[in-house]
């Protein structure tokens, strides 16, 4: 091939860059799920822990559209057959009061930046 040397060197550099996450982490510990602060005054969440861990993002999105566009405020939990209000500030954060010790812990670890709190008021946030 033409420019064989340049191409092979370039290819090698590319492969090194692309596999950086893998070889950089050789020898480090496996992903540790961060320790989250549990709510003091509530036992049951809206749904089970496993469900929430996997689905709270999609569920909040659905709540958003159902409340704002459909006027549907009531959530019937499948786990404990209670009725909750579909609201981040008024339901989730009434129990999970400390955003730093709960929400931000996982989000920071997996490096996601949900912008919910740009608008939805973190009830304890003003006190910081």
């Amino acid at each position: 091939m033409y420019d064989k040397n340049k191409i092979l060197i370039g290819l090698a550099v590319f492969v090194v860059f692309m596999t950086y996450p893998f070889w950089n982490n050789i020898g480090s510990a496996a992903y540790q799920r961060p320790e989250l602060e549990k709510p003091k005054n509530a036992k049951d969440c809206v749904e089970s822990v496993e469900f929430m861990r996997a689905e709270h993002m999609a569920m909040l999105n659905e709540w958003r559209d159902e409340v704002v566009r459909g006027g549907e405020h009531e959530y019937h939990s499948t786990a404990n057959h209670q009725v909750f209000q579909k609201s981040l500030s008024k339901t989730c954060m009434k129990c999970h009061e400390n955003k730093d010790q709960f929400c931000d812990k996982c989000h920071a670890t997996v490096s996601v930046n949900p912008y919910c709190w740009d608008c939805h008021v973190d009830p304890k946030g003003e006190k910081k």
Partner: protein
Amino acid sequence: MKTQRRNFLKIAAMAVLGWGVRPASELLAAGGGTASEGLLFASRHKVHVGPNALTASRWAMVIDTAKLNEKVMEDIVHTCHSIHNVPTIPGNQNIKWIWETHMDHLFLEDLHEYQPEAGAKSALALCNHCDNPPCVRVCPTKATFQREDGIVMMDFHRCIGCRYCMAGCPYGSRSFNFMDPRKHLETTNPDFPTRTKGVVEKCEFCAERLAEGKMPACVEVSEGALAFGDLGDPESEVRKLLAERFSIRRSPTLGTKPCVYYLV
């Protein structure tokens, strides 16, 4: 070799188009949101409220200009703006959902200059929640939409901040967040979100309170100056008021069918 490659590319392109039909139509049918939203064209959204909510076939407000005074109007504006986290911004990039203004500014050429001395000199301006709203017609994302009960709502999550709705509104009822509103909020109501910079906002007839069975906040503090009810119910307070006294609306000849009535 060359023709083979061209044919392969042609067939691949056709295949992509074909395979894309089903996902594309599913995306369109979902409207990108819940089932209450129509496909493509802006349509009235069905409302699925809970058992406690106040419902109506067509919400409307009646403002008795004779019962308004400086203090009442100030209370109304302050209450609405504080429970909805509306910032107080000095200058002309301000935000207001409801405000006091001169009768001339509300009704323009509809009022002549020889009005009774004792008549109201000013009244409140707010979104008229028109039955034929131009703002909904022009919104390119259906971020502002109309509910079946007539309330013109804002979806702050979807708004791209193009401000076409603000150009379309013939009443100047809409405001835009030119900057981060939280910098201009003295107190924050944690039960209602603030908004971010870059979205349009306006009065929503306290839809969140209606869902809990409460009347709009402005109506509650108005000391009887504001009435709110169902135009479709002949026994409602608003229908009774409209039947008893003469009332006008702002710029009705524009065809917007506004649902805020002013008793003069």
